[in-house]
């Protein structure tokens, strides 16, 4: 199958993606620097916010606008979980609320577990030099 590279590098899409995700990260950075929140808490805040905004249907607008700029940040992970749960409910009813979310995020979770194990097998942590 031929790939149309002009579609792949369509600059308006990339620019919207770059700016949106950059701004999301800046919000995270302000939280890091201005509060005493640990990285784990910040990740939780982003995922939960994403899931709530996703459930309310608001995050969909950001995804339509910025593409990966909205889905790659952890808010997108939350959005994906919530979207999956809603689709699960539409398809299977109550049980879908339990299966849909994780099903939608399964690729990412499984990849993180597998690659994490692989990295631990072959590599050793080193002391930070700075």
């Amino acid at each position, binding site marked *: 199958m031929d790939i149309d590279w002009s579609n792949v590098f369509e600059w308006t899409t990339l620019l919207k993606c770059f700016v949106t995700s950059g701004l999301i990260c800046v919000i995270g950075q302000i939280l*890091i620097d201005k509060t*005493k929140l640990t*990285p784990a808490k910040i990740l939780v805040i982003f995922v939960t916010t994403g899931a709530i905004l996703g459930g309310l249907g608001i995050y969909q607008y950001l995804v339509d606008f910025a593409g990966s700029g909205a889905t790659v940040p952890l808010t997108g992970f939350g959005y994906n979980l919530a979207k999956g749960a809603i689709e699960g409910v539409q398809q299977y009813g109550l049980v879908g609320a339990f299966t849909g979310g994780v099903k939608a995020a399964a690729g990412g979770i499984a990849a993180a577990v597998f690659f994490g194990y692989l990295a631990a097998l072959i590599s050793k*942590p*080193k*002391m*930070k030099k*700075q």
Partner: protein
Amino acid sequence: MEKIGEQTIKFNTPPTILECAAIVGPKEAQGPLAKYFDQTLDDEFWGEKTWEKAESKIIKETVSTVISKAGISSKEIDCMFAGDLLNQCISSCFGLRQLNIPFFGVFGACSTFVESLMLGSICVEGFANKVLCATSSHFCSAEKQFRFPLELGNQRPPSSQWTVTGSGAAILSKSGKGPYVTNITPGKIVDMGIKDANNMGAAMAPAFADTLISHLVDTGRNPSYYDAIFSGDLGYIGKEIVIDILKSKGYNIKSNYNDCGVLIFDKTSQDTHSGGSGCACCGTVFSGYLFKQLREKKLKKILLIATGALTNSTTTQQGETIPRNCTRN
């Protein structure tokens, strides 16, 4: 031995610090005090498989070094006091298990070294002839237990401190030519409500000030009585806070006060933010640097006050102080 004032103990036949030894890790070896240490390591594993094992090896080797430097056999040592930062003080227990010396485990967080010296001095004043005091800490094992995995890509805030990798050990003796431990002032637990685990200096500074003032009041001395006053690991921020607090209480210690955590690293080139910390911070700085200064009579009377943040991985609380006073005649 007698109690003077509220919380100070004065020794009638002051114990001598017979010998000291310090071994430090690769980062400390690049610091300004490198040349004072007995041995510096090239890597943080030192041939071991884990950091915990490496830390045990460091304390074990430091203790062997101090015993051989003192020219005595380990049988002459009546008991030893040691501790570290890891849960249940495992580095000390595992590192020192082959020595066959009666062992007291001590936990005073970063103040462990001074706490050991205080308890050791009391023993020497009592039944013992020679007492060994040792402590260790390791950057990697401490980060692992108290903070985050090393490979986690997080930013260290400017107030954070760098745990010193290394070990310091000292032998106290009933007879000797000094330097002597003349007075000790165990500090109280002081909690000023600082909850930020990345700002230990600020958490411990009030405890330092409290103990220093108690010590001065008990002994009737002025800060200027001492050639130098050292804190264990308050870092740059803690140091500034301490100077401020004491100024507000009417003491000026700016000219003869310094901090071991400030001395051990070069802040600008080593990116250690607020300075060094950990048991080994004042342990190595005292054993390596200050002890030599005392012995060469460059410093005659010093006051060393180490503070420890009494924290564990789940409750981030703080702070107590254990100060020690060491006077050279």
